């Protein structure tokens, strides 16, 4: 049976030149990007790239497909927007509030969902996310159909004015790279090795004495927290939190980004987020056809292109990416 991600070949990760090189290229692109293209677009890509990386932590390294990650992204975005607008918190505290909300929801949802696996896991995460969508629809503070608009970006630590796009860009870049390196650290730590062992053969991991449910729960909470970090940052950058962020198509979109980029690859989710967002911008005039095109990409990826863009490149050149 072909797995969702490529099996691990060696016990200890071999140090390769490809990952640091790719990382250097990524940083170079992100440093130069705001001078070449719209900074707002690149910031949005970074938010969704972090979201997709957080999602990939679960599907790529534990083999769990969550179909409800919009819950953490969207609710963190709401809480962050509310904290910045209604409570007047500084942006870093607002983002922290949103991220902690996502962590708490992740813990509750994780306890419920890790009891089931595979297909059931996907359905349960989707159903829980839909429940929280209805709460967001009915709650007063979310503003219902309007969402929370005109969220102030505020001053970082009360000093740096984030309404300046360049300052905002640097903050988002720092958050994105911080989150990315944290995920990279997690998957290469002993903890990450146990996660991969669970993905490969859970029964075996149990027989080796690992309490696999705890590892899976921990991974789930980490993934939810980082998704929350991405959602909170997005609320500050785009200055809006809305039902779109918390509804099921958003959960599908993050799956699509990761799938296009490459499940279980380090850089795949970033490439995927860029490709999907760029496509949405280019195709904005054709309206609802975007949905159809996304569907076609899903089908094409699953049938012909299961490694994703980065996965294919890595496979072709026999390197780790």
């Amino acid at each position, binding site marked *: 049976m072909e797995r969702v991600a490529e099996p691990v070949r060696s016990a200890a990760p071999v140090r390769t030149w490809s990952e640091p090189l790719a990382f250097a290229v990524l940083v170079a692109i992100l440093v130069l990007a705001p001078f070449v293209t719209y900074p707002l677009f690149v910031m949005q890509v970074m938010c969704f790239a972090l979201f997709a990386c957080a999602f990939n932590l679960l599907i790529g390294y534990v083999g769990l497909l969550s179909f409800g990650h919009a819950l953490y992204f969207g609710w963190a975005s709401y809480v962050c927007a509310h904290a910045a607008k209604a409570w007047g918190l500084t942006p870093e505290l607002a983002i922290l509030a949103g991220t902690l909300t996502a962590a708490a929801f992740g813990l509750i949802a994780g306890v419920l969902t890790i009891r089931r696996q595979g297909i059931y896991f996907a359905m349960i995460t989707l159903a829980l996310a839909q429940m929280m969508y209805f709460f967001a629809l009915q709650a007063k503070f979310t503003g219902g159909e309007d969402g929370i608009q005109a969220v102030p970006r505020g001053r970082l630590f009360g000093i740096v004015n984030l309404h300046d796009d360049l300052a905002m860009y640097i903050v988002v870049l720092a958050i994105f790279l911080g989150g990315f390196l944290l995920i990279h650290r997690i998957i290469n730590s002993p903890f990450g090795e146990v996660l991969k062992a669970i993905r490969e053969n859970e029964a075996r991991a149990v027989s080796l004495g690992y309490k696999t449910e705890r590892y899976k729960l921990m991974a789930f909470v980490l993934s939810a927290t980082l998704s929350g970090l991405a959602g909170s940052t997005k609320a500050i950058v785009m200055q809006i939190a809305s039902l779109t962020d918390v509804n099921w198509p958003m959960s599908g979109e993050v799956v699509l980004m990761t799938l296009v980029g490459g499940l279980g690859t380090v850089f795949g989710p970033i490439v995927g987020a860029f490709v999907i967002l760029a496509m949405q911008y280019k195709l904005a005039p054709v309206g609802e056809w975007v949905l159809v095109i996304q569907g076609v990409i899903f089908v094409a990826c*699953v049938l012909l292109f299961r490694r994703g863009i980065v996965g294919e490149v890595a496979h072709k050149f026999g390197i780790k990416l």
Partner: protein
Amino acid sequence: MFEIFGIPSQALFGQLLIGLINGSFYALLSLGLAVIFGMLNIINFAHGAQYMLAAFTAYILLTSFDIGYWPALVIAPILVGIFGMIVERLFLQWLYKLDHLYGLLLTFGLALIIEGTARNYYGSAGLPYRVPDSLQGGQNLGFMFLPNYRAWVIAASLAVCFGTWFLIERTRLGAYLRAATENPTLVRAFGINVPRMITLTYGFGVALAALAGVMAAPIYNVSPQMGSELIIVVFAVVVIGGMGSILGAIVTGFGLGVIEGLTKVFFPEASNTVIFVIMAIVLLVRPTGLFGRRA
């Protein structure tokens, strides 16, 4: 007119009836999902989209070809069932050897394609579909008014559900089906064409969703998002009931519909979420679901 727990009986029985109607659709759809999952090991995310597709087929048959409800009740499931079989041959058959999650992802993509196409041509607003003349009006039962069409939907879906149960659990064809679910290789060795059976099973499961779609058209408006809203609730129903038993799927479907209807009477704010809350509780108490067999 009398009152129960301070609620007028009309409102209570009215919501109970709506609950039974919703329950009929939950049961039909979760039954289709369970049948497909049993044979193909795929969770058919496109189930809701196929249900919607059938409602639109009935709408188009009526408005463009002047073909009424009764013929549509037969034609739409056949057309959508054939569409399902084509999908299975073109796409799904390549996924059986892969992780089950790929089936979910592919059918999710299909659902997006179908829903997006419908939205492009018909917008997001609901289109009305008239109740057929032969089922207009209703019966006054003394304690409530029972519209004929709603009575028909409940009776028809009960009949279809138990017919499906009988087909799978009590006939020779059903025995082949259950055997092929357990061990396809061995069943093939006995000379039974398992791939064709898989195709037909998928077509049958999709046709069940299509039947529900046509029956739903006069009750809810025909709209592109009618399927995606429903399918997520049906997923929760499937998690609660477990997919191990057909009777379990039927009982859970109707039961949860009724509970949802009652919630609308006593605590309207929670009516959208009650099924998900029940799912969470069931997961805490019985992680395998109420009728689940496997640990």
